[in-house]
């Protein structure tokens, strides 16, 4: 795995609390003899080896199936759809990807749709959540508590439960069968966590800094863009990352609100591949499509996981 942050320790909710270290060596051991200490170090070394061995084995359970599917997607269709004992099982080819990304199936268009929706959702969510976080975090105003509660209520409403009325509403607003409409829907259901994360980011900004900017005559906008922006950047990264991954992998909403094949996002388009809407069922194509859907998640997460875990913990604490 490239670019794994080895030093990365997910921030616990109580940032100042030290992590529970079960295997921490006892302090104040006092006068150990050199031999005992060496024996102790040997035992610790063996424990570390066992820990790593077990860790590798456990990790394999979670990662190998995904790697196996990458391997399978590189097999010719005939090998994917026939018994593994068949010849050609280890013959690797890009044929599935080539077929999928060209010709009548043209998944490329769906990949672009998915990217448009995911990027738009990430942008919208970030901008709206930054503004709201700034407002909730650094301004006192009447009804702030109720307003904040209202935003969080959206978190309690399962979006699966408003699908039908939302369908009618989007239809009325001419946002059905519309990638922007889908992005607006995704933005709404990503806002609670985004607003929560951003509000906490702004609350943690040293108060003196805000006051100093004000004394210097900085406007609200300048304070946000010049003074506060660098300080809340990690929060923005968390918000954008969540929104992007949510939209990229979302299925039910896209399935319900898009009926035009050419507008389908990738996960929905793959259900056409699965059922063979474009002709015979072709599992090689399905696997190649699934791998294409998987890669951005893995890349984005491994690169930015520091921010992801932050959001996970603060999002959880809200509950």
């Amino acid at each position, binding site marked *: 795995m490239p670019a794994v942050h080895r030093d*990365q320790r997910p921030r616990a*909710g109580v940032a100042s609390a030290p992590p529970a270290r079960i295997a921490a060596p006892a302090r104040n051991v006092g006068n150990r003899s050199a031999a005992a200490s060496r024996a102790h170090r040997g035992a610790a070394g063996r424990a570390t080896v066992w820990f790593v061995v077990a860790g590798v084995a456990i990790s394999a359970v979670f990662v190998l199936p995904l790697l196996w599917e990458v391997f*399978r997607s590189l097999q010719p269709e005939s090998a994917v759809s026939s018994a593994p004992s068949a010849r050609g099982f280890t013959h690797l080819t890009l044929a599935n990807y080539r077929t999928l990304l060209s010709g009548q199936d043209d998944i490329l268009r769906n990949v672009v749709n998915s990217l448009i929706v995911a990027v738009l959702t990430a942008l919208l969510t970030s901008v709206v959540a930054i503004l709201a976080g*700034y407002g909730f975090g650094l301004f006192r105003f009447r009804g702030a508590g109720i307003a904040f509660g209202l935003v969080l209520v959206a978190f309690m409403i399962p979006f699966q*439960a408003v699908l039908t009325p939302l369908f009618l509403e989007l239809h009325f607003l001419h946002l059905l069968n519309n990638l922007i409409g889908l992005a607006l829907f995704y933005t709404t259901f990503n806002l609670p966590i985004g607003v929560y994360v951003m509000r906490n980011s702004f609350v943690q900004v040293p108060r003196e800094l805000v006051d100093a900017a004000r004394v210097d005559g900085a406007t609200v906008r300048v304070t946000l863009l010049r003074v506060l922006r660098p300080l809340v950047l990690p929060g923005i990264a968390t918000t954008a990352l969540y929104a992007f*991954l949510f939209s*990229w992998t979302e299925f039910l909403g896209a399935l319900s609100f898009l009926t035009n094949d050419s507008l389908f996002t990738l996960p929905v388009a793959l259900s056409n591949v699965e059922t063979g809407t474009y002709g015979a069922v072709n599992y090689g194509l399905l696997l190649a499509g699934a791998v294409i859907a998987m890669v951005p998640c893995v890349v984005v997460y491994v690169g930015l996981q520091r921010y992801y875990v932050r959001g*996970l913990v603060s999002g959880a604490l809200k509950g």
Partner: protein
Amino acid sequence: MTAIPASPQARSAARRRRDGRTGLILVSPALLFVAVFALFPLGFGVYISLTNWPLVGSYQFTGLSNYDALLHNSEFLQSIVFTLKYTGIVTIPIFLVGYALAAFVRANRRGSAVFRTLIFLPYIVGLVTESYMAVVELQPTSGSVNYALSRIGLVSDTTAWLVHTGLALTAISILVVWFYSGFAMMLLMAGMQSIPAEMYESARVDGASWWTMERRLTVPLLRRWIALSLIVSVVGSFLAFNQFFIMTDGGPGTSTVTVVMSIYNTAFASFDVGLASAMSVVLVIVVGLITFVQFRFLQRDGD
């Protein structure tokens, strides 16, 4: 502005008013989104559920007749039973596996950060993508899973996993536990790491075993996090749709139709919008109840 001779109090009051207005303006886009795309649909859904809303044309109020129809709608009732059964099957394994994983990776030892990342990957990739992969690998004869299991003699190589209710439920449950336990691990680990290390010092001095410390110290201190992870997982299971839609499409027959799939079918296949909305209202209430009951249950003793 500067020409107004005002007392300091008056000036600060004016500033507070201006601040209040600015704050409200800043949060209004978020409020607008939530109002338009979450709160309004929720209220609208309740309204529709009291009508015989057609796709085109006018509608009448029909009172609670949609709700009355629900009580006699065997597909919906069956979907509730099935979804509860599925939730019952996966919840405990997800928690136990998640807890064990969290206990394993919580300390900052050599490699633990990498292990966390790798164990969490299935959750990041998403259940939709993985369901498609599972469909391919569960095919009789050609699927890897089926092939491997038949080689060690557990099943016949022509086992059609996804067209038998029990087998499909088994396969999907295993997939979901694999997919979701990394998430449970992350939540529980965050809770474990927020426990001060000193809590363990005296227990260790007393020579308490790992198991005793875990049972007597970690679990009680973790109660709120355990409640949280259970609620999130139970609600998530109760809202299941994607994996069933992709892997069985509710079949064979309607035996693996979940609640959300039942709503989806009623709205978008039968076009019975009023009935689907009534189902949605029931869903919101049930999810709210699950959350409430679990919170009460887990917070009953203590704090």
